[in-house]
């Protein structure tokens, strides 16, 4: 059964230096509060897994938490580059970042294999691409019936999978709806899992389309607006201004460091950071 606790306690309990973490959420329900808490607790040498490392991983990478990134699309959606990610890859700042790069279909296949207890997954993909030259863990498998060759990729089995969802009930059963991405797979492929939720309710909303039973989750923590600047369907919309504003904050190393200091190290939790964001709205726009 999931332990219902604070985010700070959940991260302190499950996340260790050097682990492989997957924070998932496909544009929707990105667990940004959890990423902040990982930075706040000073975790280092992490291998970060995520299909779309956007602002949340830009912060973790810029803050020096990550040694390696496993991903398929690293940009600021609708805005442009992730400057901290680029600074790490192009100029080894704040230090070298190893990358392992796949396609979305490949990453999704890897999560499904991990969630299914299979050592690998297969797909029609990668053929003819330069990914084959630079990503060593893409192989092939031959269909024993037709002789066709298919791409093979190893299962992802992160140490900790972290997602955000709309609701949990008092037993820790988690429900989410709207765009569901690979969140279910990320939780089920991981050895431990943390789910932050908007609220705990007596009964899950009737719109819930994905339910993760309490007993497949390690910890549940309530963090209202915990997905901001991403969104939580039915709760709040995507803060597009924040994503646009992030471009200038993150372009400059000093302004990034100042932002991390002010918004993470000098705050005690995500609620305090959100109050700052609400106050600074003009600055970010």
């Amino acid at each position, binding site marked *: 059964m999931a332990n219902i606790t604070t985010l700070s306690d959940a991260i302190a309990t499950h996340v260790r230096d050097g682990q492989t973490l997957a924070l998932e959420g496909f*544009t929707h329900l990105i667990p940004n509060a959890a990423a902040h808490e990982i930075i706040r607790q000073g975790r280092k040498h992490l291998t970060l897994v995520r299909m779309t490392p956007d602002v949340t991983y830009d912060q973790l990478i810029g803050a020096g938490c990550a040694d390696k990134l496993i991903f398929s*699309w690293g940009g600021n*959606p609708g805005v442009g580059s992730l400057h901290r990610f680029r600074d790490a890859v192009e100029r080894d700042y704040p230090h070298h970042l190893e990358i392992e790069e796949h396609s979305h*279909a490949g990453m999704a296949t890897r999560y499904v294999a991990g969630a299914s207890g299979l050592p690998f997954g297969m797909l029609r993909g990668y053929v003819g691409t330069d990914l084959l030259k630079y990503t060593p863990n893409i192989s092939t498998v031959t269909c024993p019936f037709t002789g066709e060759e298919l791409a093979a990729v190893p299962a992802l089995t992160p140490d900790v999978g972290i997602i955000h969802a709309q609701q949990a009930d008092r037993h820790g059963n988690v429900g989410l709806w709207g765009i569901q991405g*690979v969140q279910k797979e990320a939780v089920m492929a991981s050895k431990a899992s943390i789910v932050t939720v908007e609220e705990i309710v007596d009964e899950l909303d009737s719109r819930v389309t994905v339910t993760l039973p309490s007993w497949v989750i390690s910890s549940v923590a309530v963090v209202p607006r915990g997905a901001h600047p991403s969104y939580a369907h039915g709760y709040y919309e995507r803060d597009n201004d924040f994503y646009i504003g992030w471009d200038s904050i993150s372009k400059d190393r000093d302004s990034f460091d100042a932002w991390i200091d002010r918004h993470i190290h000098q705050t005690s939790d995500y609620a305090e950071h959100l109050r700052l964001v609400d106050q600074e709205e003009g600055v970010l726009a």
Partner: protein
Amino acid sequence: MTAPVIAAEELVATDDEMMMIVAARELRNGVVCFVGIGMPSTAANLARHMHAPDAVLIYESGTIGAKPTKPPLSIGDGELADTADAVVSVPEIFTYWLQAGRIDVGFLGAAQLDKYGNINSTVVGDYDHPKVRLPGAGGAPEIAGSAGEIFLMLRQNNRAFVEKVDFLTSVGNAEGGDSRQRMGMRGKGPSVVITDIGVLRADPASGEFVLTALHEGKTIDDAKAATGWDLRISDHVEITAPATDEELRKLRALKAGEL
């Protein structure tokens, strides 16, 4: 009498608008289209509001039959889910829908393109020490492989239209001829590239992209100067029909969220 003059001025398409309008015209009604974010998404939604109301737009976030009223900023905006016929998981969209061959057209952008429509969206320069690190593959390699055909749209200049892409992210017509088919790809690959200058179409035999149309006011020299390879020109280069008032009004209303 100033008002009509201003209105007339407004109804001249910018280069980007022309590109989106021409791209929209390529989509037939009823097409099932896997849409990349940005200009492809805007063009596809314009088509839906013009001649193709039954076009089915699929986004890699798992939204099938999305009908957004304004262009989504991200591939997973809430409005896509709210207006979709179905919302499925990301693994499912790439397996049951894309890989299974259910997509007629994959509609993509690119950072770099070669004459066979091979795409780079990964790095400019060397992979290990890139000059510019781009976002990477995303859904494109498998869209390029499995969709029935591929429509590409991007601004034409010789940093983007290159002799050889720095990184082959998504295979187009490979090395031309039947090289793509020999790789076992199921879709027939890129058939058209819509740019801000004109339209390029793949030669059915060689797979090489050939300039077949110019937008009003653009010249063959403009196209050649903006292309990093020796651009082939069709024997009959058409002039694109100008943007109609309705196209432009709907495009602008769409972008303003007023459709």
